């Protein structure tokens, strides 16, 4: 489903260059459940943004479902982000002063999702992440963990084939984390591909494959306990 070759991302700011990713190569098949680990600043979020078609690499190729993402137009990318990909941001990024319900409805309203079903769908998802009683709270009236769960519900709204989650349990208590992980596992069983970033080895265990990143490079790639060969 995903094929990344020689992917690099270099940030240039005031003449200073930061290499966030350098020459990354890997493949992820449809239906895989992958955890990405690594120390802070190692480039995990940067990689996730590339995979989510939210940012463009400095060099290298990213092929999603046989399409080279770099060749797509702005509107085609928007369509892919809307239909194929669900993204949970590390910083949640909810629409400010807007209710949880409206936040979840937002991706539905950019698709041609039937109007009359939107509220029902959003309510179901929010109930699933345990926020059935917080539908009309504005994002600034929610705790960090609750905002994170709204962000997860929003990512699931369009039932995306690829779910990308940047530390989805970073702000959650253990019991809530486990509930979210159950949701992710169920989705994965239904055939959805999931990639998540996490710092916690216990959470990473839910995934079937763990990729470890350091200094913008993949240093380890384990699947069901077996080491995969890292392509260069």
């Amino acid at each position, binding site marked *: 489903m995903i094929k990344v070759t020689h992917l690099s991302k270099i940030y240039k700011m005031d003449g200073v260059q930061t290499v966030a990713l350098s020459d990354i190569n890997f493949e992820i098949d449809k239906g895989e459940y992958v955890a990405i680990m690594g120390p802070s600043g190692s480039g995990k979020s940067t990689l996730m*943004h590339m995979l*989510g078609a*939210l*940012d*463009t690499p400095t060099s290298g190729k990213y092929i999603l479902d046989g399409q080279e993402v770099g060749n797509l137009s*702005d*509107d085609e990318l*928007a*369509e892919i*982000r*809307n*239909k194929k990909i669900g*993204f949970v*941001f590390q910083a949640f*990024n909810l*629409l*400010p*002063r*807007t209710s949880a319900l409206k936040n979840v409805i*937002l*991706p539905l*309203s*950019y*698709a041609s999702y039937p*109007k009359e079903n939107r509220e029902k769908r959003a309510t179901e998802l929010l109930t699933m992440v345990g926020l059935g009683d917080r539908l009309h709270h504005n994002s600034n009236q929610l705790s960090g963990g609750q905002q994170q769960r709204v962000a997860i519900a*929003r990512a699931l709204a*369009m039932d995306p084939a690829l779910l990308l989650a940047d530390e989805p349990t970073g702000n959650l208590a253990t019991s809530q984390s486990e509930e979210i992980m159950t949701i992710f596992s169920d989705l994965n069983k239904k055939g959805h591909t999931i990639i998540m970033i996490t710092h916690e080895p216990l959470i990473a265990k839910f995934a079937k494959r763990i990729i470890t990143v350091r200094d913008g490079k993949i240093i380890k790639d384990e699947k069901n306990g077996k080491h995969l060969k890292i392509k260069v």
Partner: protein
Amino acid sequence: MDFFELLAESLNALTLNKMRTALATLGIVIGIGAVIALISLGQAGQKAVQSQIESLGSNLLTVMPGAATTGGVRGAAGGDTTLTYDDAKAISTSPEITAISNVSPELSRRAQVTAGRNNSNTQVVGVIPSYAAVRNVTMSAGTFITSNNVDSEEKVAVLGPQVVSDLFGDGADPVGQSIRINKQAFRIVGITVSKGGTGFLNQDDIVFVPLTTAQNQLFGVDYVSTISLAAKSADVMTEAENQVVYLLLSRHKIKDPANADFRIFSQADVLGAASQVTGTFSALLSGIAAISLLVGGIGIMNIMLVTVTERTREIGLRKALGAKKKTVIAQFLAESIILTFVGGVIGMILGAGLSLVISHFISLPFTLSFSAIVLAIGVSAGIGIVFGLYPARKAADLSPIEALRYE
């Protein structure tokens, strides 16, 4: 997103930051309000002066006593007593005068007019019947001064509506009753129809008496204060003027027209002078209006720039969730159009209301200029759209992550 969703989304965004929306709208309201009020007041003033001058009578020539002043120096001695009823008669009877249809000699003075206990200081004008034709006077009751009245120096009076209401109360019909002018009793024979006007142009606060009565019994003079002339048509104004000047010069035995002891001017002269004054006034008001529109426009521009820059993150998020570029831009466009439209309409209502109130207090006719409305709303909407669109487009061109990182 369809049109209504877009509209709902925009309205929602606008209500999220009520204070800023209110301030942005206020800028437009004040800009447009000022423009509409100033322009419509300017036009009302111009119209008022024009219509009052026109209501004095069309094709009107006025002969006044006194020398033509050249560079502030009086050409000849004369004073204000050089025109007589005989001059007027000569103008109407002379075979050389072909371009004049009516001649109206007038003697105008202020005098104390009383009826019972009420009294009023009013313009009293001695006239002959042709006054009515020259000055477009129509009667609401009774008759105007007749030639019999003039020939036999009768003590009869025709009142303007203002005088009637001052002396007898609103809506009274005092025809047949009597008034006293400078202590002499006059029988009221008619009341004129209101012509409107205020201050020195008030043509309703006036009392007409026969010219001969005014000269011999009221004021004891043998001259007239003006001779009004109606030319046969607007085309022969110059001809009429020349004929009258020639006749009067020869009657007054003056060889050099520069030494004339009278002045003659036409409606066009008065209108021209007046519209020059009101035109300057209007231009001044329009200038002030333009400045306030500019200031309002800069306000809109500023708010739109701030709004969009501040919401770059939001634009990034919307794009990340699948909003197409044109959807994002359409939303901002809808927001600025709503903002400028609502502000424009409120401003228009306030501006029109303001000019209605002001024109009521200074007794001007109220006019609302359609072109001013279109101009003002067009300009502010244009500014709102251009300066809302530019940063929105810039933000929509960023990658979602860049926009989300924007601070």
